[in-house]
């Protein structure tokens, strides 16, 4: 495998942006919970919404600027697969243990 400066930069940026994107999604769903929780004032709700909107736009902008949209989507799919397998393994342990000696999936 050939590692040059561009591909290194590309890979690192993809990793960072993907993580930020995942965190942003977690923040968004927590923001919805907080708003539904009813403790926030109207002003706080509005500010929160605007800030998350700005964050979302900024991430899209960064992805566009560096041409990372496709690679970030790929990495996300990969991560989702890993998590999906993990959850599946925890939820259905029986399916992952075939007869002794049989090969695992």
């Amino acid at each position, binding site marked *: 495998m050939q590692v040059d400066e561009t591909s290194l*930069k590309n890979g690192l940026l993809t990793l960072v942006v993907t993580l930020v994107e995942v965190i942003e999604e977690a923040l968004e769903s927590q923001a919805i919970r907080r708003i539904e929780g009813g403790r926030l004032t109207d002003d706080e709700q509005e500010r929160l919404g605007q*800030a998350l909107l700005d964050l979302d736009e900024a991430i899209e902008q*960064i992805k*566009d600027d560096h041409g*990372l949209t496709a690679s970030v989507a790929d990495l996300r799919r990969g991560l989702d697969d890993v998590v999906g397998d993990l*959850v599946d393994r925890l*939820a259905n342990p029986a*399916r992952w243990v075939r007869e002794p000696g049989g090969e695992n999936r």
Partner: protein
Amino acid sequence: MSTDLRSPVAPENRMEPTNDLRASLSDLLDVVLDKGVYFDLDLVITVADVPLIGVSLRAAVAGVETMLEHGLMQGWDEQIRGSGRSGAEREVPLLDGEEIVLRMSGGHLQEVPYRTWRPGIVYVTSRRVLVWRPDPRELLWQGALRDVTGVELRPEVSVGGADRLRVCVTTPQGTTLLTAAAPQRLHDALRAGTLTRPTGGAATPGPVPRGEGDDAGG
């Protein structure tokens, strides 16, 4: 593919109800934050049966809403929200009589001390073009419209190999590259702003809030 359609379906391909949970990373995070996780970790690193390093870790991770439901972090919640209550502080600092013409997400290319794109929100006002980051607040770059001597669109190949249009703004301090969600609109707004600027000394820009704009151009 020579599949005999009449052949009996192999046992592992037979359709049977399964509990197949395809979860994405976001789903997992959501569940974890909604339920909350409590770590209780004791770790002792030993060499030759002699304990050398000890780690005693107690951690609770959850969405604040979950924390509040369990009676945790109430003080923090009120304190932090109380400190951020003045919403006007987050707004971009404008000069007297200055009006926002255009607002979009974008950024500018910082040249010193190192070359990097700094994302923020690009504003074109009646007097300035500026890149503002609300959180943490910083005026990343600004230029007075009356100083702008050139505005042009420049295609560039990004790190990922995609073509992007950058907006080149030339001021006496130098040329700065701006990026924006809609480069063409930013370019047009800047063109319009710099061409229709009031002639004469009437539009002297007031004292600029911060001096970063002067050294950003390199």
